[in-house]
Structures are given as structure tokens and as C-alpha cells.
């Protein structure tokens, strides 16, 4: 759906050049929710603005569908932009227009006749759950409601792609979740391709299928959300994964565990995807003669299935414990005996 090749953007400041995006290549498939995560200054904001040419790339190409965005003239670009919706961190609604008129704005731009416009706007107001608020002004809405207007406005012209520029960063956690649910809902209902940038791993975990990690204008790691969660390779990715898994405590608590439970074997189990649905622990304790002691763990849900880590202690006959571990290895759960970090 979106193919990005060797994309670069250089900003010229007074005394130096800043490479905000540096030779970035990426393919985003139709219907996917693709998350780009990075700390501020990583270039992700510039990256998403390059996708609808709010910034013009210095080098490289962007194809949306089979259209080469980078080669388009000003007028053709305007038409192409009507196929790419965008929502913003600070919503960017027109305060002088009502909710209804804000949503109608992109339709006015596209030259949709009045009756059709009215039908479409009412449809969208219902879709984003703002029925009855059409005549309110943005200033009368909460942050979450404003973002709903933003989403409705972005969807007005039936775009193929929705770009989300830190769309939930200005919202509280609860509102964030309701907006994310709405995005997933739209993605499923309309088959819309969504590209979002964020600095919150929570957002990636909750709704993304694919993730790319950005640092200094480059993508340092990318892939299936679950894979990246399970095997983060770059230090920056590990930090982001820790954000959600709360594993800052891990080292600390692992030391505690080791000090406290010196008998038996301490084992770390990685649950990925479907394996979390198996009743593994109870199965092991039934099949083998040993005691299973759950020490520490966390399982979390992503769009691609569940993911989690658990520390357990196996106490029993050494051979029996070894057999139990062998058995777990035969399932899709990954096992690490005597983990050291």
C-alpha cells in the first residue's frame, strides 16, 4: 500500500544541516496498523509529514497505492491528499466552526454537493460516537471528543490511509484507550491502512500489527509487534518494551528471587501468541511429580496475540524437573533455565 524508498529529509539551519530522516525504507501493507515509535527528536514527526508531503523530501520516493507522491505537481498533490486522512496531537480543529462544520470542511474542499455532504457528516458523527453533538463548538468538547471530531474529519473523504501524528499523546490514559479502540474499530470496519507515530509503547502494544523503531532519523528495528516485543535487539527497543512490561524491576526482583529461592530450579518462561491460552502450569504440575511455584510474571495482550514472561520455581526430583523442562520446550513456550538477567 505504501512503499517508501531511501527517504531523506535535511533541514538547513543557520550553522548546520540537520538530517531529520536519513535513508529510510519501509513497506506498509494494505489494512495494516503500522506503528513508528521513537523518542522526541528521532525524526518520526518529520517522517509522518513526509508521507503526505507536508514536508517535501530531500531525497527518496513515496508510493501510496500505485501513485508516486514525490513526483506529483502541486495540484495533483492536493487531489492525492484527499485520499490520505490525518489526525494530530493537538487536534487542529477550527474553533470557529461547529463539530458538524468541521467534519464538513474536507468535503467542501473536495467539492461534495451539499446534500451528500450532510448525509456523510451525519454518518461520520455517528461512527465516531458523537451523536447529538453536531452543533457544539470544539471549545465545548473534551480532549477525547475533539480527537473524535478529528478522526471523523480525517475519514470524511473515504481515505485509503490514515496518518496519526501522536494522536493520543495529549490525552489521559483512559481517553487514550477509547480513541485507540475507535482506531482499531475503523481499521477493521473500513479496512483502512493506519500509520501512526508515538512515543508510547502502550499504543503500539494495544493496536499495532507492525512496528518500526526510529532513532536519529533511521529505522533501527522493525517487524511484527509480537516478535519485537519478544526479541528486542536494539537497546532503544528494549527500553520501549520495558515501558510496557514494567521490567525495570526485573533485575532487581530476579536477584531477590534468586536469594530467596535457592532450592530447585528457577526458570523463565516466555509466552508468545497462542501459547498463552494453554494451561501450561497446571499441565506441568499434573504430568510431573514436582511443585511449581510462580514467582513473578506479567502477561499482556497485543493485536497479534498475548505476550508475557513468567518466573517459576520447579521443586522436585532433578530428573523429573529436567523432563518437565524438556516437555515445555516441546510447546511454543520458550524456556530459559537459571536466567541471569
Amino acid at each position: 500500500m505504501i512503499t517508501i524508498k531511501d527517504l531523506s529529509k535535511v533541514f538547513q539551519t543557520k550553522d548546520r544541516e540537520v538530517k531529520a530522516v536519513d535513508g529510510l525504507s519501509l513497506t506498509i501493507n494494505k489494512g495494516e496498523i503500522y506503528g513508528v515509535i521513537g523518542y522526541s527528536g528521532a525524526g518520526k514527526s518529520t517522517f509522518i509529514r513526509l508521507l503526505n508531503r507536508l514536508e517535501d523530501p530531500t531525497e527518496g520516493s513515496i508510493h501510496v497505492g500505485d501513485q508516486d507522491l514525490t513526483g506529483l505537481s502541486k495540484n495533483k498533490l492536493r487531489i492525492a491528499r484527499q485520499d490520505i486522512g490525518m489526525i494530530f496531537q493537538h487536534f487542529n480543529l477550527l474553533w470557529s466552526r461547529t463539530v458538524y462544520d468541521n467534519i464538513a470542511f474536507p468535503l467542501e474542499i473536495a467539492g461534495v454537493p451539499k446534500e451528500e455532504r450532510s448525509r456523510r457528516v451525519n454518518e461520520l458523527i455517528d461512527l465516531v460516537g458523537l451523536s447529538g453533538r453536531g452543533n457544539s463548538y470544539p471549545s465545548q468538547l473534551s480532549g477525547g471528543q475533539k480527537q473524535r471530531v478529528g478522526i471523523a474529519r480525517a475519514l470524511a473523504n473515504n481515505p485509503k490511509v490514515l496518518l496519526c501524528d501522536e494522536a493520543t499523546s495529549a490525552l489521559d490514559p483512559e481517553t487514550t484507550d477509547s480513541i485507540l479502540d475507535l482506531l482499531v474499530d475503523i481499521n477493521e470496519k473500513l479496512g483502512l491502512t493506519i500509520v501512526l507515530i508515538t512515543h508510547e509503547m502502550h499504543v503500539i502494544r494495544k493496536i499495532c500489527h507492525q512496528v518500526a523503531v526510529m532513532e536519529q532519523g533511521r529505522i533501527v528495528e522493525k517487524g511484527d509487534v509480537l516478535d519485537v516485543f519478544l526479541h528486542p535487539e536494539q537497546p532503544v527497543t528494549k527500553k520501549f518494551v520495558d515501558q510496557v512490561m514494567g521490567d525495570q524491576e526485573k533485575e532487581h526482583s530476579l536477584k531477590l528471587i534468586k536469594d530467596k529461592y535457592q532450592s530447585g530450579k528457577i526458570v523463565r518462561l516466555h509466552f508468545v501468541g497462542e501459547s498463552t491460552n494453554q494451561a501450561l502450569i497446571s499441565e506441568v504440575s499434573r504430568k510431573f511429580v514436582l511443585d511449581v511455584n510462580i514467582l513473578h510474571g506479567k502477561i499482556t495482550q497485543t493485536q497479534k496475540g498475548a505476550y508475557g514472561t513468567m518466573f517459576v520455581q520447579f521443586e522436585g526430583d532433578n530428573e523429573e524437573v529436567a523432563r518437565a523442562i524438556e516437555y515445555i520446550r516441546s510447546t511454543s513456550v520458550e524456556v530459559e533455565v537459571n536466567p541471569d538477567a
Partner: protein
Amino acid sequence: MLNDFFPNVRMEDMITATNETLYMTLISVAGTFILGILLGLLLYLSGPGGLWQNKVVNTITASVVNIFRAIPFIILILLLFPFTDFLVGTIRGPNAALPALIIGGAPFYARLVEIALKEVEKGVVEAAKAMGAKSSTIIFKVLLPESMPALISGITVTAIALIGYTAVAGAIGSGGLGDFAYFYGFQRSNFDVVFICTVLIIIIVFIFQFIGDYASRKLDKR
């Protein structure tokens, strides 16, 4: 009783003078509003980061605006005599004051327009661009509506300055309350006339301020 306190004040003269002042004010406010918005838009759009960023246009516009703002109004009227004569066919009466009033008021208002436009959130303009809006759409459906309360309070301030200018224009015989106060009141030592003219001008100023405040408040949905 009125005649005891103000023996030289004649009602019909006062009404005529007030009408002339109102006429000059209203027409010049309308002219200033249009010309000022055009100049202000040009300043804003050609400025750094603007839609039509252009250093040459920006510098020229800014210079013109600054020069005309620097000329004292009474001198501006004199300087414009040939232009006024060519345009209106006379250099006396309310109509002859209009070119000077508009040319004096518009640059002042243009700066206020520029400030108002700068207050429009960049993000909103960006959102409109992302929707595929044309420049004209951005100007007429985003920039102007979003800055309307500031544009209205700006024109209110300008209108009050213009009421003052109409009185100054009285010095060259434009008609209106300033003219009447000076020639009929001051020069003939009819100080009661000067006093009544002053009161009338103050009332006009108050009315304009009230209307401006009300409209600006009504339009502001923030």
C-alpha cells in the same frame, strides 16, 4: 433651557455636522477594512513561513506600510491634495477627506491584521493543507474566519482613530464635527459649540466601541 446654557448651538447645524462625521467615519472604516485586510494578508502570506513566502514582496509591502504610518495625518492630507483632486474633483467637503482617511487608516489596520493572522494556529493551517485545500480556501475558510474576533477588535481600534482623523480633517474644511468645532466654535469664540461637538464625538466613539466589543465577543467561540 438648552438655549440658556448653549446660546450659539443650533440643532440643525449639529445634526448636519454629526451626519458628515458619521458619513466620513463609516465610509473610511469600510475602505480601511478592505484595504487593510488586503495589505495585512500580503504582509502575512509573504512573510517568513507564509503561504507565499517572498522576501521582496514582504519588504516592499512592509516599507510602504511603515512609511504611511509614519506620516502625521495632517501632513498626509496636504500631501494627498493632488491625488484627492484628481480622484474626487475637489479638495473640500467630506468626500475629499476619504482618500486621506483610508490611506492613513489602512496601513495601521494592516499591522493589526498581520498580528491577528499570526495568532491563527499553524496546526489548523497545516490540517487544511493535509486535506488538500487550495490557498484561496485556506485564506477565506481558515485564516480569516479563525482570526475574525481579532480582526473586529482591530477595526474597532482603527475606527476610533479614524473618528479622530475626521476631526483633524476639519482643519482643511472637510465638514463634520471637527470642522464645525474649529471654524464655527473656536474661531468665533463660541465655546459652547466646541463643547457640544466634543460631547457628540465622545458619544460616537462610545457607540463604535460598544458595537465592536459586542461583535467580537459574539464571534469568539473559543
